[in-house]
């Protein structure tokens, strides 16, 4: 089924309400019940929308499937989409509006770490619940915040030993986007590289609108690293992969990334420009398990689209499934009740089993180290089953400190 214009009714707020078709609701005997309201705040437009478009559709698909199967606690789900237009100011406005005026029961969304840090205090102030479906730099300790994506203790813990020890990438050169995600992730990279006996030659932060990497590439050649680590973000930084290919190439120097593939970079670059890039991910379309294949098929049927979905698309569906399961376990949609039942909530998803760790509200999941082949597809090299978010577990214990709302950052010795 496609999302048609008729299913969306524009709200005066600038949000878009999405309800399943009346037929779906009445056949599931849900039409009369008061709907559960779910806010989804993502960037449909602007420079960061490459991360959001598939996720918005996956969230709609999850809501529709839940409604078809009889709703949640006998009530239908109603989604309200807000387009934050890649602007943190709008994230703040819409999060407030969703909780105060539209009185939603949960907020899903946010892409960048800066947008998450805009939403989180608002959710805390108005005692809501927030599900963040994106990989990030880890360390957020907040019981009103649920992270369903990878953190460094999962992603880098899998990726770094493979690159540093198995491939011999001892000397690393780190490039990171110039905002909180890049700054904290680069510290994690330094820590992992040093702990593994490697050396971090340099760390460079690149503003999000820089697209000329010629001086960076000259310095990289001066430093002669074994591997370049990229934590680059957004449309302008895509040029790095093009210019790296035209200047050095992955056959001469390894290129590993914490962000590559989540903006579906591999289908936007030409096949030869992305070939050989190494990454760690919790979901990719070619995973080739029955659950993954089934998800890809359902998504394509639902949206009518035939292209790559990837981790962020699947992440939206993952977040909705985990939250819905927690609601079922709690028997209530009240944030406090849902929060109490989060620990141990588990769903069998497209990327394998996902379980929420009650100590941190982060998610235990399978992680795959993969390399891009010459056909714009990823091939898994190593798979790590059920990796816990160890970095955040070290610093965060919501069972003991339920009122904690800190984001802990890694300290380098």
């Amino acid at each position, binding site marked *: 089924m496609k999302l048609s214009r008729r299913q969306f009714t524009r709200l005066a707020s600038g949000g878009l309400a999405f309800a399943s078709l009346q037929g779906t609701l009445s056949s599931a005997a849900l039409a009369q019940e008061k709907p559960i309201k779910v806010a989804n705040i993502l960037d449909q437009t602007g420079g960061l929308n490459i991360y959001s478009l598939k996720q918005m559709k996956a969230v709609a698909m999850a809501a529709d499937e839940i409604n078809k199967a009889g709703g949640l606690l006998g009530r239908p789900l109603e989604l309200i989409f807000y387009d934050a237009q890649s602007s943190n100011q709008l994230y703040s406005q819409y999060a407030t509006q969703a909780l105060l005026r539209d009185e939603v029961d949960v907020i899903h969304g946010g892409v960048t770490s800066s947008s998450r840090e805009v939403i989180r205090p608002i959710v805390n102030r108005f005692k809501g619940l927030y599900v963040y479906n994106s990989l990030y730099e880890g360390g957020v300790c907040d019981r009103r915040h649920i992270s369903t994506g990878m953190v460094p203790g999962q992603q880098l813990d899998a990726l770094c030993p493979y690159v540093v020890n198995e491939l011999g990438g001892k000397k690393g050169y780190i490039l990171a986007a110039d905002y909180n995600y890049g700054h904290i992730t680069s510290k994690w990279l330094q820590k992992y590289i040093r702990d593994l006996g490697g050396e971090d030659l340099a760390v460079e932060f690149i503003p999000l609108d820089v697209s000329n990497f010629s001086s960076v*590439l000259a310095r990289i050649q001066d430093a002669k690293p074994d591997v370049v680590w990229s934590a680059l973000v957004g449309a302008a930084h895509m*040029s790095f992969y093009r210019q790296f290919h*035209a200047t050095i190439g992955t056959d001469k120097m390894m290129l590993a990334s914490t962000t590559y593939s989540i903006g579906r970079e591999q*289908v*936007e670059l030409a096949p030869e420009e992305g070939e050989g890039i190494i990454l760690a991910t919790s979901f990719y379309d070619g995973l080739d398990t029955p659950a993954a294949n089934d998800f890809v098929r359902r998504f394509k049927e639902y949206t009518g689209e035939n292209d790559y979905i990837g981790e962020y698309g699947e992440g939206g569906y993952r977040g909705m499934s985990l939250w819905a399961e927690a609601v079922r376990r709690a028997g209530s949609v009240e944030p406090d009740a849902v929060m109490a039942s989060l620990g141990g909530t588990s769903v069998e998803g497209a990327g394998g089993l996902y379980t929420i760790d009650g100590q941190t509200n982060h998610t235990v999941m399978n992680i795959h180290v993969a390399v891009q082949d010459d056909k714009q597809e990823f091939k898994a090299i190593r798979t790590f089953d059920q990796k816990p978010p160890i970095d955040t577990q070290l610093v965060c214990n919501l069972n003991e400190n339920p009122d904690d709302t800190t984001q802990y950052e890694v300290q380098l010795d």
Partner: protein
Amino acid sequence: MDSLMVYVYQIAFSFSILILISLGLALIFGMMKVINLAQGEFLMLGAYFCVLGSNLGLPLWLAMLAAGLAVGLVGVIVERTVIRFLYGRVLDTLLATWGISLFLMGIVTTVAGPQSQSVPSNMGPVSLGGLNVPGYSLVMIGAALMMLLGTYAIWRFTNLGLLVRGTMQNPEMARALGTNTSMIYMFTFGFGSAITGLAGALLVPLFGASPTMGGFYISKAFIAVISGGPWPLIGTVSASGLYGVIDGVVSYELSPVLAEICVLFVAVIMLRLLPQGITGRMRKGI
């Protein structure tokens, strides 16, 4: 010696990018005094026409030329339908061209999607004194110089160039002498658009094409043209040269962030010392 080569290359590359993105603006804003806020989107349109041409099977260089011509045509259409009613009305032009910019971004996003696109040059790296640089970047430097010299030659040595300069200097007198100034305006705007489109196409192999790419370049282009002063061609070249040196050296020695800060800092100081721009005190020029 090696490091000298690195500096020469970094400066030449920064210079060529500045020339590419600001040459069209030097004509449209510098000569015609039309503040075209859609300039960045003309660049983006050139990049997309190049991707389109290449997808249709044209060789890359032909796709680039076709992209330049296509954007030139778009420029002519925009001039005939919007700009020509607004000459001399600065604020209205600002608003109208901003609208065109949003419209072009919207239409490209709708047709081609929000994701970026690539057409690799397949040229591989070239070694310059031990430093690998993209072979294609040398083509870009050469193309920027050729576009610059070509524009200069047309403006300086041809009859058409004389008519254009005369019209821009004193349209009433030009009309009195029998020049069809309306056509000259249309031609100049179209020519500036075509150069911008070609520049956008030239950027594709190393920078890709995305609907929002215009925004990355537009401010730098305006800074170069404004600091250039009243003689747009010579001014833009000297401003691009100055900023190219600063950008190339600082971004290699320190970082791209500091390079951008330095460029803006120097631009502010320079406009304080030379409020009329670099060519403000020149009596003759283009």
